[in-house]
């Protein structure tokens, strides 16, 4: 385990050196991702000029909703920083045979495939997320109890784990199919569902959608569970969500691991 940490640090160092070599590019990436984020925030502000709440009686008024958005920013920035750049590079690695070099090294292939590249510019959004969370929580009517603060980081980790499992399954699909452009679009569109409070999915179409996105692909648990814990009154019912998130995270890790191993066994390797 120690060795993996050492290797991860080596990766991090190398990526940092690289980012600092191309400083201008790095700054641009920070600026663009901040730009994208502020645009979304502006949109939500605009929406709240027309309504006081997202969904009647859901409790997602302005400040709790921004706490929700902040949670999403934090989780996504972690996933974007640690896993997405490597996973996106995988397509190229499969196409050019770079994956071959990974497979001959005495190291867990899943580890190498999902973590060899770290995108530091993605932390910019996470930092803004933390700031936004502090702002939103301080302005809410009810202060989160200590237990909520204790659970929050754990649930963030669970959210990251669920998304990580999805990334790994996409990676497995890439290995099997050799290309994956629409798969990554799929990732984008799928995580899109996690961007809003689960309560908005109601009615004859929304209900089933909510069920699917909670129990089949637990994408709705990613942001909703930690955000609820911090931004909504903490009650006995909150524990149900916590349990669901923990179970979903564990299942996501296990299932994705199995799928990935199967995919590796069927890897074809690019011809040279």
């Amino acid at each position, binding site marked *: 385990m120690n060795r993996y940490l050492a*290797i991860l640090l*080596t990766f991090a*160092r190398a990526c940092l050196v690289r980012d600092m070599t191309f400083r201008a590019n790095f700054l641009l990436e920070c600026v663009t991702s901040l730009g994208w984020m502020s645009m979304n925030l502006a949109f939500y502000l605009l929406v709240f000029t027309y309504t006081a709440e997202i969904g009647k009686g859901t409790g997602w008024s302005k400040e709790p909703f921004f706490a929700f958005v902040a949670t999403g920013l934090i989780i996504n920035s972690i996933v974007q920083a640690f896993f997405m750049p490597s996973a996106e590079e995988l397509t190229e690695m499969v196409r050019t045979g770079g994956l071959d070099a990974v497979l*001959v090294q005495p190291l867990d292939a899943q580890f190498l495939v999902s973590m060899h590249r770290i995108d530091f510019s993605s932390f910019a959004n996470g930092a803004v997320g933390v700031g936004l969370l502090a702002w939103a929580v301080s302005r809410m009517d009810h202060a989160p109890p200590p237990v909520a603060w204790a659970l929050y980081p754990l649930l963030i980790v669970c959210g990251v784990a669920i998304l990580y499992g999805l990334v790994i399954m996409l990676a497995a699909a890439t290995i099997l199919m050799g290309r994956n452009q629409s798969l990554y679009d799929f990732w984008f569109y799928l995580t899109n569902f996690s961007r809003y409070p689960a309560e908005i999915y109601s009615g004859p179409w929304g209900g089933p959608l909510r069920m699917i996105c909670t129990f089949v692909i637990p994408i709705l648990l990613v942001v909703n569970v930690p955000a609820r814990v911090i931004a909504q009154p903490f009650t006995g019912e909150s524990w149900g969500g916590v349990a669901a998130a923990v179970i979903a995270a564990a299942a996501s890790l296990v299932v994705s691991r199995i799928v990935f191993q199967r995919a590796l066994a069927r890897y*074809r*390797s690019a011809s*040279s």
Partner: protein
Amino acid sequence: MHNTDPNAAAAVADPVIEVEGLAKEYRVFDKPEGLAASVRALFHRTSRAVEAVKGVDLVVGRGEFVALLGPNGAGKTTLLKLLSGIITPTRGTARVLGHVPWERADDFRRRFALVMGQRNQLWWDLPAAESFRLHQEIYRIDPARFEKTRNALVDMLDVRRLILQPVRELSLGERMKLELVAALLHEPEVLFLDEPTIGLDVVAQHTIHEFLRDVQRRRRMTVVLTTHYMKDVAALCERVVVITRGDVLYDGSLAEIVDRFTTHKIVTLDFDEAPERALIERFGFPCEFRGPQVVLRIDRSRIADVLPEVLAAAGIRDVSVEDVPLEEIVAELFRSDTRAHAAAEAGS
């Protein structure tokens, strides 16, 4: 048409690579051409199985330096990938250093290395020293030993000043040298080289030959190499395995391949001035006139009888008798196999 000696397996004293009936089949989908065909393919995709490697048997002993030869698409690289555990075979067994490669045990992967000439395994934007450092972590090399090995390898190839430069700024030859250093840092017992000299200039090729020979002897490393350059083979390998269409066509020593598959000797005669054609042509061998020089291809079986007679011709200044170049022999070998295959296809 196997030329493998059935006793070869027994003859290898300390087998490091043991392969039996190894086969790899790929399923490929036909990509139809033309609009109408594309539309048809909407509803029905045709696929067929392609056997990249079919039932290869091979035993390699410790310390051997083996060349895998074959035309493009013969299955050399697929075989190397099977042996390094990158892909899983359809049939057959293989053991490398006592491990089944495609189980990818860490213990196995720590003991071999694979270098592919066409692929870059070093960190592109960073100095090679960083990649070496990562190797140390991945292969758990003892720091003191790592330093020692790295310094030795770097000095042998004279690339010490290059390891602090970003890899993207280096030439192909320099990069290849650093790739080799990286691959040898963990002192692998088995080294697989896939076209290591592709695209390199003569000087770099020569340096790499010297280096590989040196390291291989010193460490008693087992090396399997695929290449299209006969220079690599002549400089490095005693043993040659020829593969065509996924099958072993020949397995034996380099000397033997020359002996067995050459029918001619190349005799070059230098005259004082351009000789009369009829004088040479009367011997009845294929010949080529290049001013005062004449090149003859003489049957090996008759060379002893004919040569004195040829040399008796007036005005000869110099003479040399050579084997047919290795390239030509191998090309002929590939071609004859293709012809045999075509004939068999036609007959069946």
